[in-house]
């Protein structure tokens, strides 16, 4: 009854407050009411017919009520309600629509993961809809995601066809889209089989700071079915021609105990390498495969484990990748004080490997040095380079047994810039004229080196000693002689003696001691320096390793190659190009990034950078790369490939001085089976995401609880954030009734009184 008269129920009136929305100048309206009432009284004061005074007053009052009511309507009366902001806050729901969601797990009946997710989200078969439950409290935005998030309209949009999962990107894009809009929580429905993109749990940590917890609902069994799979392949993006490349395949065997082969195949299906995983190796195994590409270009390969009889999922038994082979060597500059065996054997170790270009300057008794391995443009025929552009052609510099006085101050400063700015590597060897005996005290080398030196009075000890690796050393790539750390320790324990050491005082804070020599003095120490790296190997007698071991044991060669590679790892290219993945699925955007550096390897922001992209059909399209304002020397573009197959890219940078540099890269577009690499639910990952964001992990059966959690969150937010809602009252039945009754009563009385 009350509600039918007053439009709203009593509790709303009890909680609310009646206000006038147009009450900015109420005095004028009050004046109008008074004027209206005055006029009514005036007109009824002298009527043409004699009307009793009491009736005249009644008529005036009735007309006054009508006029006042209408004026009040003009004031726009409202009922102001105060309630939680839920109606204006959002919960985002992200549903995984990738192919892994099409899997049917044992124990789930005939339902695929995606069907379970559909029921959880939209209801069905007696289950309540999570969407409806949430919409009862707040606004809900639905998304589905594979590699990219897209709006989700209804259950028909969820069909598990996304070729890849990028949970990180989906969460990030939705989070970015919701910026500025109050978001109460994010709900993610997935099996956690993410195989691309960044770390979602780190993003979840950031969302916690923003007050947006993530509720994860995990689909899929936690127990592995009987299956063999290639989970991941690790390999270098670009390799050098005729260099043996190590490809690491992560394979998993669940429920099978027998031995099985892991094969590396080329594009023609020929087996390039094969490794057998022994029987009893259930679980995840890392397998090393080798390939030596002998031609330049991009070569597709496949890592494969044969399917067992009756294996249900065979899509995950192979994984493809590409190797880009460049005819490029790692350039090393080695300066040596006089001919000695160490020089000969280091040169030999690096010269034999086509991965390296060793240029050396050897001082002899003659006025001019013996220069070996130089190329046009190196400009080292007369000695150590005097210009940055010549020194910066190299990626690592080795000072042998040579004193600081051989170099000018400018040359030593340039070597420091070579490491600090260019990202090159610097190594100083031991000897009677190096380190503390070479006058390096007070030079940039003293700053760069990872060790502190003794004074010049402490001489070179020409005695035999063993290399004793530290714990850090055994795990370091320079001393990596075996995959197995115990085996590595054994190899070094049995390694022959080397001869000679410069006693060093100690290792600088922040540097890493890899090995000690005689009397526990530091022998190998390394550290990062600026953009590059520096190392000290305080002996001139590592050649004894080569001479003392059988020819098939290449400890010496391996050590030197690893040392130089480690030194040069940070060296910058004038133009370096990267795509964010090796293999894309059709329609997936390719992000191309180029870093452009000038002659002295400083970032260049005004280059004209274009990418020429040749698709598998041989069509070429050009894309312009734009400078990313926030990143020095970095240019980017994005495009979507439209054909499956190999794409080759040539990126050209044109400099303002007319110079030009090019770089190549490639990628392929194909169907990916990575989605099936991990068959079990990644509950650990989902729990980590939920926990990092302050949210909670749910099973599908408990997903309905999310509504309660959201409700609780909204209530908590209510105390912090009040939302007011004004509801119109002018159209309440009572208002019109009062006016109508007043006018009707006035009219009847007027007629009875003989008034017009």
């Amino acid at each position, binding site marked *: 009854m009350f509600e039918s008269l007053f439009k709203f129920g009593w509790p709303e009136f009890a909680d609310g407050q009646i206000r006038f929305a147009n009450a900015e100048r109420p005095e004028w309206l009050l004046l109008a009411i008074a004027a209206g009432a005055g006029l009514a009284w005036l007109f009824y004061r002298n009527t043409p017919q004699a009307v009793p005074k009491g009736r005249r007053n009644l008529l005036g009052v009735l007309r006054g009520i009508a006029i006042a009511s209408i004026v009040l309507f003009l004031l726009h009366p409202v009922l102001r309600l105060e309630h939680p902001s839920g109606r204006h806050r959002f919960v985002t729901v992200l549903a995984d629509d990738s192919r892994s969601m099409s899997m049917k797990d044992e124990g789930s009946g005939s339902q695929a993961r995606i069907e379970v997710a559909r029921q959880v989200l939209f209801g069905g078969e007696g289950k309540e809809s999570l969407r409806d439950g949430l919409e009862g409290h707040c606004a809900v935005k639905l998304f589905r995601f594979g590699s990219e998030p897209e709006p989700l309209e209804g259950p028909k949009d969820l069909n598990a066809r996304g070729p890849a999962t990028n949970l990180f990107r989906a969460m990030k894009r939705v989070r970015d889209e919701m910026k500025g809009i109050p978001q109460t929580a994010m709900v993610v429905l997935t099996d956690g089989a993410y195989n691309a993109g960044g770390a979602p749990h780190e993003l979840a940590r950031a969302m916690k700071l923003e007050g947006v917890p993530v509720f994860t609902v995990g689909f899929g069994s936690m127990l592995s079915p009987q299956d063999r799979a290639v989970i991941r392949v690790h390999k270098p993006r670009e390799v050098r021609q005729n260099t043996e490349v190590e490809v690491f395949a992560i394979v998993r065997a669940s429920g099978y105990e027998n031995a099985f082969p892991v094969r590396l195949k080329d594009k023609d299906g020929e087996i390039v390498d094969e490794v057998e995983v022994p029987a009893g190796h259930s679980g995840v195994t890392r397998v090393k495969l080798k390939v030596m590409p002998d031609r330049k270009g991009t070569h597709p390969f496949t890592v494969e484990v044969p399917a067992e009889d009756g294996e249900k999922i065979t899509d995950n038994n192979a994984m493809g990748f590409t190797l880009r082979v460049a005819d490029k060597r790692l350039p090393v500059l080695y300066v040596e004080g006089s001919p000695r065996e160490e020089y000969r054997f280091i040169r030999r170790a690096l010269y034999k490997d086509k991965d390296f270009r060793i240029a050396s300057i050897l*001082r002899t008794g003659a006025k001019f040095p013996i220069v070996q391995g130089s190329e046009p443009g190196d400009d080292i025929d007369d000695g150590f380079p005097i210009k940055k552009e010549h020194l910066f052609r190299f990626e690592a510099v080795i000072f042998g047994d040579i004193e600081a006085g051989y170099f000018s101050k400018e040359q030593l400063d340039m070597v420091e810039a070579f490491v600090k700015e260019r990202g090159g590597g610097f190594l100083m060897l031991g*000897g009677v004229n190096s380190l503390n005996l070479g006058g390096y005290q007070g030079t940039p080398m003293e700053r760069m080196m990872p060790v502190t030196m003794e004074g010049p009075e402490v001489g070179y000890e020409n005695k035999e000693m063993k290399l004793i690796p530290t714990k850090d050393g055994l795990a370091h790539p320079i001393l990596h002689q075996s995959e197995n750390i115990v085996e590595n320790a054994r190899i070094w324990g049995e390694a022959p003696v080397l001869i000679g050491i410069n006693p060093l005082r100690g290792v600088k804070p922040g540097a890493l001691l890899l090995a000690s020599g005689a009397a526990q003095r530091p022998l190998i120490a390394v550290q990062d320096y600026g953009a590059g790296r520096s190392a000290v190997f305080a002996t001139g007698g590592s050649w004894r390793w080569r001479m003392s071991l059988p*020819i098939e044991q290449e400890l010496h060669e391996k050590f030197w190659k690893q040392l130089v590679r480690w030194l040069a790892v940070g060296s910058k290219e004038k133009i370096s190009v990267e795509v964010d993945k090796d293999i894309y699925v059709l329609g997936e955007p390719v992000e191309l990034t180029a870093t452009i550096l000038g002659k002295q390897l400083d970032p260049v922001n005004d280059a004209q950078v274009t990418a020429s992209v040749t698709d598998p059909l041989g069509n070429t399209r050009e894309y312009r790369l734009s400078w990313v304002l926030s990143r020095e020397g970095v240019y980017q573009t994005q495009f979507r490939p439209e054909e499956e197959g190999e794409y080759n890219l040539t990126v050209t940078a044109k400099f303002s001085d007319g110079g030009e540099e090019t770089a190549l890269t490639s990628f392929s577009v194909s169907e990916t089976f990575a989605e099936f690499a991990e068959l079990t639910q990644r509950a650990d990952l989902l729990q980590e995401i939920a926990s990092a964001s302050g949210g909670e992990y749910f099973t599908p059966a408990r997903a309905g609880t999310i509504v309660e959690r959201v409700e609780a969150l909204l209530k908590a937010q209510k105390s912090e954030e009040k939302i007011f809602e004004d509801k119109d009252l002018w159209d309440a039945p009572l208002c019109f009734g009062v006016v109508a009754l007043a006018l009707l009563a006035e009219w009847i009385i007027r007629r009875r009184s003989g008034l017009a």
Partner: protein
Amino acid sequence: MVLEHADTLKDWKREVMRDFRRRLDQRSRREFLRGGATGVKALLGLSLLANPLGKLAFADEPEKKDKKKPDSPKAVKTGTFYFPRLMFHVKDETGDQWNTEPAGDVILRKRLSELTNINVSQDPIVCKLSEMEDMVRYPFVFATSEGYFDLPAKEEKNLKEFLMRGGFVFGDDCVYNKTGDRFFQDFVKMVNKIFPDNPMRKVPLDHEIYNCYFEFPKGAPHLQGVDHGGWGLFEKDTGRIMTYCTPGDLHCGWCSKYFSPAMNEAAIRMGVNIIVYYLTH
């Protein structure tokens, strides 16, 4: 001269030094009697084979590269280079054995240290192929004799391993009866036997071994014997010379008693080139 009882390093060292002093004394007396300036220099033991004498007429006299004139002997020296002699079984009982003319080694070591900045150990060292652990300390060894020789199977195996690891053997024929090439023939035969798929061959005249320090446009100086030229075993994947053999008795040229001073100087400089080549390749 044959040092018959030099079976141990100690004996070898003692006998070498004794022989060298005696020869220097004899040489000095002869030169002194001649009254020539050369003799005075020899008497004083100063640069017997120095540049002025090297300029005397000699067909194979090397010309120094202008830009590679040696600096003063004060040039900085690093590392330690040993010049050991290889002990092996010579079949011929007559003629010089593996340990012939040790004074030549002494002179070469001395001159090597004068002409380059190589830190040369003056210690006489003897190596045996049967003792691999000892061999690996001295990656460069020198072998010479006048006669035919052979190696037991174990030594052949060790020699192959030594060369493969990066060792270097310089062989020089001491020339039997001033005309022979017995050592050279057996050396080539032995190397070809242990590397059957990679036989030794004549080193071309424009090879670095002939110009890495001093210039020898006509190849290694030939002092006597059969002129086969210098032969080398080339490493398959790098082209590096793994072992080098000369038929022309360079070693006797290092001594000062058999040939002209110019020939002596040429032999010494070729020895320097071989060692510099070894240390840089």
